[in-house]
Structures are given as C-alpha cells and as structure tokens.
C-alpha cells in the first residue's frame, strides 16, 4: 500500500510523511532524564573498541580519500553548536563538543558516511527528503530540525520506545525508499558493532563524551539481538523491522492514512460517476441501451460465452438500473473472465455496496484482488466471505480476530482451515483456501487445494483455470497447459484461459504459439490493453517484427488470419 501511495502521490507525499514524523518526534528537551547512565554507554564504547582498533585507520583513510568533501554533516553540527551551545545533555551538543576536540575523527566519520556518494548527493537527497536543507531554508531552521532529531533520540530512556521510534524513522525512510549506501568494509559484521564502530572511530580521540544512555541501550539491544541470532545482522534487522512496520500502520501517525483510505473505500463503494477513477468505465455507443430486456440477454450471452456482447448488455442494464446488484455482480464475473480484474473489481464494488452480504460477490472480490496483488483487500474479502457464510459462520465465530492487520494472512488461513475441518467437502472452501495460498506464494498447497475442489466440482472451468494459473506462477508452465486446455474444453470462449495459455507458452519460450493464443484471446475481448502488450512482446521475441505494425494498429482480423490456431 505504501508503495502504491508513493507511486500515486509521489515524492512530495513522502516528504510530507517524513516531515510529519520529524515534527512528531519533537520532544521537549526539559523532559530529558536528569542523569544519563553513562556507564552502559561507556561499556559499549570500550567493548567495541577492543576488536576494532584498526578501524580508526580505515576511517582516516576514507577521510583522506574524501578529504575534499568535509561533509554536510559536520557543517550542520558546527552550526548546531553555535546555535545550541546551551544544551548540555543532547547528543548533538556532545558531538559538537567532540568535534572541537577531535576534528580529524569527526571528519573521518563524515567521510565514512559519505562513502562513495559525493557529499553533494547526500545534501540533495536530504533536501528532497525534507529532513534538512543546507541552502534552501534558513540556517536556523536546519539547526532546529537537527536539534529536534537529536533531542528525540536522547529524550526517552525506555529502550523499547527508543527502539520503536528509531525503527519507525528507518522505516519511514525506507517507505519513501530513501536508500543509503552502507559501509562496505563491514558487510558481514553484525550491525551493532558496525554502528558502534563508527562511533568508536569518532570517540577514539580522548574526549569527555557522555553519550546519553538511550543510544547505548539501543546499540546494546541491537548487539544482543545480532549476537543472539549469531547470523547476519541484516537478516536480524530485517526481521525486527518487519514486525514494527506492520504495527506502525496501526500507529497514531497513520490516522490520516486511515482516513484517506476510508474515504477512498467509500468513494469506490459509493454511487459515483462511472468514469471516476477506480470506478467502472462503461463502453460508449452501447446498442443495448435502448433494449429493455438487457438483463436476460446479458445472462444468455454470458452462458453462451459471447463475452463482449454480454458485457454490453449488462452495462446497459446497470446504467438503466444502477441498483441491480445481480447485474453488477454478473458484469464483474464477465469482466473477470475477460481478464480485466480492474473492471471486475469496480463492478463488484457496486454490487457489494447494494448487497453487502452477497457471498459470491465477496468471493469474487477476493479472487480479483489476488490477481491485482492487493493482498490486504483480498484477505479482507475472503475473511468476510467465510465469516458471513451461513454454514461456516458458526464454526469460525469463536476464532479471535488479530489486533494487528499484518496477521490477517494467518488469520484468514486459520478461519478457512477451521471451516474445512467441519465441512471437508465444500468446494468453495477449498477454492478460497487455494486463493489464500496463492497470496502467500505457497503454490504447492494452493495446487493441492484447487485439486481437492476439482474432485468435488470437476466441471468448474474457472477452477481448472485457477489450477493452471497457480502451476504457471510456480514455474510449472508445462503442467499448466493441460489444465487450461480442460478449462477451454468446458468453456471455449473463456478469454482469461486463452490469455493464460499465451503466457504459459511465452514462459516456455514458444513465442509463436504464445502469439497465436494471445490473438485468440484478443479476438474475444479486444479491449484488453495488457494482452495487446503481451502480444507485441511475443511478436518481438518470436522474431515476427513484420506483424508489429499490425498489432500496433490492433487489426485483429488480419492477426487472426496470419496467426491461426
């Protein structure tokens, strides 16, 4: 979701988020603990200093290499010292003080941080991230921001708080995908010592530094963590962060995100103009608009597999009777079979707004969101489906909802498994479980679930397609082909299965066959922009560049003649 929000809202949005974080971190310096346990800090220093005696040299070398780049950090801190000399306890002040005593070491630190990236690049990036600006803003403001950060990091002794705030900051950065080049020399060393090492290099010069204990505790925490796992720091860190990220989404700073999301959801479910973003887009010049029997015709066309016409008939019905939930649901189904999950979701949302407990709609929304890789929404609908199902609701009623949204994959899986234990011969349950396994990329389990569903319902063409797609997505395209073939035997105009067949042949590097299947799919639904793109790629890869202009012109008749199946 973060990525999607970032993509939609761009850098300014990320800037705003980082800015909000920084101001939320602004804690009054008067709340600083009066006496900071310097013992632990010093212990860390001395503990880390032993094995890393050679590091100062390394840092100094780097500083020499980057000598022409004294580093924005140093400058910032120097200014900080001037503006903020009165603050005694803060880390920033301490750094400045130490800078006076140990100028070369401080430079080394700056140089080390600069790494391969020129200092100016750092500055640019920090400017764009809104963290600090050297030139654009006034000096006072830059100092103020640095001070806030330093204050915050020193303000609370609770390691848990420290840790989570720290990680939040890191995760904010990574959410905006601000990425830093790490210290090359310390790649395999646990991070705690690596970070400590940087401070050690700095502190090697004798100084009266009294680091605020929270920093020490934080490093101790990391060190303990890294030592405990005995493995690569990065893995341990990534694991630690993963949990925090999830809980962060429930945190107070994200309330505005929540509000935004709710507004979006309401808009999607609300009766909006069909052309609105995320809404259903109707075809123009629909000949069925004047046909009062469009619902029955839509059903009939759908059953006969004339999908494009079925779409038009159902769209006409939905335009004339916008509250016909069944028409919207059917339209969603047809769009899914036409390999257009976005339109399918838009139509299903309308159906669900009218009839919020319709089980088929909930299940279809779960599948379509899975195809669109929106796993949180997919899980939400699949969870609702099993919880609202009259047969399964009593079975799963006792299962507690996790407070944390990050647990929803486990939660929904356990709901479905509990329901299956009570009703092992329910094909829909096996299907839903197969979809959830797909979301979790547990493809072998997904294949198993779809096979069980097929034992109970062997004539269900969409299940054969789900089985094939799961096999294809788990790199078993060769096995996917017979499953798709079965689906197409049962429903010859199943556009999605033709498309999937093309994808499988493309994966098998048989681009000629792939292009033929894509052309067949497009002859059933020429509105599928993605499939046109797949076709052009297949033509390129298969050396049929002569047909590219025909594909660009979307001349389906000529393509069908050139590439018959």
């Amino acid at each position: 979701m973060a990525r999607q929000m970032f993509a939609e809202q761009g850098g300014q949005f990320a800037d705003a988020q980082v800015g909000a974080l920084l101001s939320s971190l602004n804690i009054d310096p008067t709340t600083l603990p009066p006496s900071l346990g310097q013992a632990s800090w010093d212990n860390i220093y001395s503990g880390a200093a032993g094995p890393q005696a050679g590091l100062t040299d390394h840092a100094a070398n780097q500083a020499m290499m980057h000598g022409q780049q004294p580093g924005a950090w140093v400058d910032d801190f120097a200014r900080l010292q001037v503006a903020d000399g009165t603050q005694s306890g803060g880390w920033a002040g301490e750094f400045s003080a130490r800078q006076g005593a140990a100028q070369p070491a401080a430079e080394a630190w700056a140089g080390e941080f600069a790494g391969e990236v020129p200092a100016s690049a750092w500055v640019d990036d920090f400017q764009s991230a809104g963290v600090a600006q050297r030139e654009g803003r006034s000096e006072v403001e830059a100092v103020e921001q640095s001070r806030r950060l330093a204050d915050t990091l020193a303000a609370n002794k609770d390691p848990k708080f420290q840790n989570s705030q720290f990680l939040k900051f890191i995760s904010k950065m990574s959410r905006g995908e601000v990425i830093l080049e790490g210290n090359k020399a310390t790649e395999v060393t646990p991070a705690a010592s690596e970070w400590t090492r940087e401070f050690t290099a700095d502190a090697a010069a004798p100084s009266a530094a009294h680091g605020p204990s929270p920093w020490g505790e934080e490093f101790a925490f990391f060190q303990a963590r890294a030592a405990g796992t005995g493995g690569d720091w990065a893995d341990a860190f990534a694991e630690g962060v993963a949990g925090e990220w999830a809980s962060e989404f429930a945190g107070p700073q994200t309330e505005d995100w929540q509000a935004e999301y709710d507004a979006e959801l309401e808009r999607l479910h609300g009766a909006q103009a069909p052309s609105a973003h995320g809404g259903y887009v109707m075809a123009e010049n629909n000949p069925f608009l004047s046909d009062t029997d469009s619902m029955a015709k839509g059903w009939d066309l759908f059953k006969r597999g004339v999908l494009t016409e079925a779409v038009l008939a159902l769209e006409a019905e939905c335009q004339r009777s916008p509250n016909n939930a069944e028409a919207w649901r059917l339209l969603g189904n047809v769009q899914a079979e036409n390999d257009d999950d976005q339109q399918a979701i838009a139509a299903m949302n309308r159906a669900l707004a009218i009839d919020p407990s319709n089980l088929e709609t909930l299940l279809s929304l779960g599948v379509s969101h899975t195809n669109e890789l929106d796993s949180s929404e997919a899980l939400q609908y699949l969870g609702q489906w099993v919880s609202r199902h009259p047969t399964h609701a009593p079975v799963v009623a006792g299962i507690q909802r996790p407070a944390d949204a990050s647990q929803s994959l486990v939660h929904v899986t356990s709901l479905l498994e509990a329901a299956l234990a009570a009703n092992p011969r329910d094909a829909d349950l096996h299907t839903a479980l197969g979809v959830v396994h797909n979301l979790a990329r547990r493809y072998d389990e997904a294949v198993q679930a779809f096979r069980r569903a097929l034992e109970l319902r062997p004539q269900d063409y969409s299940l054969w397609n789900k089985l094939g797609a799961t096999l294809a997505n788990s790199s078993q395209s060769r096995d996917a082909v017979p499953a798709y073939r079965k689906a197409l035997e049962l429903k010859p105009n199943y556009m999605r299965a033709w498309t999937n067949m093309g994808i499988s042949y493309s994966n098998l590097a048989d681009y000629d066959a792939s292009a033929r299947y894509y052309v067949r799919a497009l002859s059933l639904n020429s509105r599928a922009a993605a499939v046109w793109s797949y076709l052009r790629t297949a033509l390129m890869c298969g050396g049929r560049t002569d047909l590219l202009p025909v594909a660009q012109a979307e001349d389906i008749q000529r393509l069908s003649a050139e590439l018959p199946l």
Partner: protein
Amino acid sequence: MAPQKASELLEGLGKRLESEEELRKSLCASIKSVVVFVIDKEEWTLDLRPGQGSLSKGSPAEKADLTLTINGANFVQLVNGKLGAQQAFFMRKLKISGSMGLAMKLQPILDAAAEPSAKL
C-alpha cells in the same frame, strides 16, 4: 514465470522498451536518468533519459546516475515481487550507489521487467 534468469528478464525488458512506446515514454518521463544494473558482475545500462529509452549490455557511455548491484537470483526474486526492494536493501542483497532520490523510483522498472503473471 519461466525465465528464471536475470539476463532473460533484462532482455525481455529491452524488447518491451523497443516495442512499447508508452512504456518507453512513461519510464523516461519518470526516471530521466541512466541506470546501471550490475548483475553477477555483468553490466546492463538502462538509458532512460528523455527521448531515449533503451537497454544495452555493457557499461554506459557516460556516468551512471544510479548503479544497482545485485546477484542474478536475487534480481529474479526482486522482479517477480518475491523480494521487496527495501527488504533487499536492508538484507544487503541490493547495493545502491548514486542518487537516492532516483532509487525511490525503482519499482516501475522492476514491474516492466516482470513477465506477465497468470490470473486465477
């Protein structure tokens, strides 16, 4: 997702850049730079400056704005969405040098390199 080799995925991306004018334009409009992938010590230069839009093997003629270093297996995971870019970075599987602002915009490139996935 059959092509499990980084080189095949990149060649596919190159082909798509050639045949898909919209993709080419949108990537150039958002990236505006030269991005180099170093995969298993092989260099691939993605020229996404305005008006360009091509992928070629080897070093760039000019200095790259962003260099991404990753091994082939991890690159395949990255493109297939099995490994997140930030996760890869934190796990030290992905090394980045150059503009960090640019590194934020990586995802559309990865998406464009991905093979189409089959739909349920």
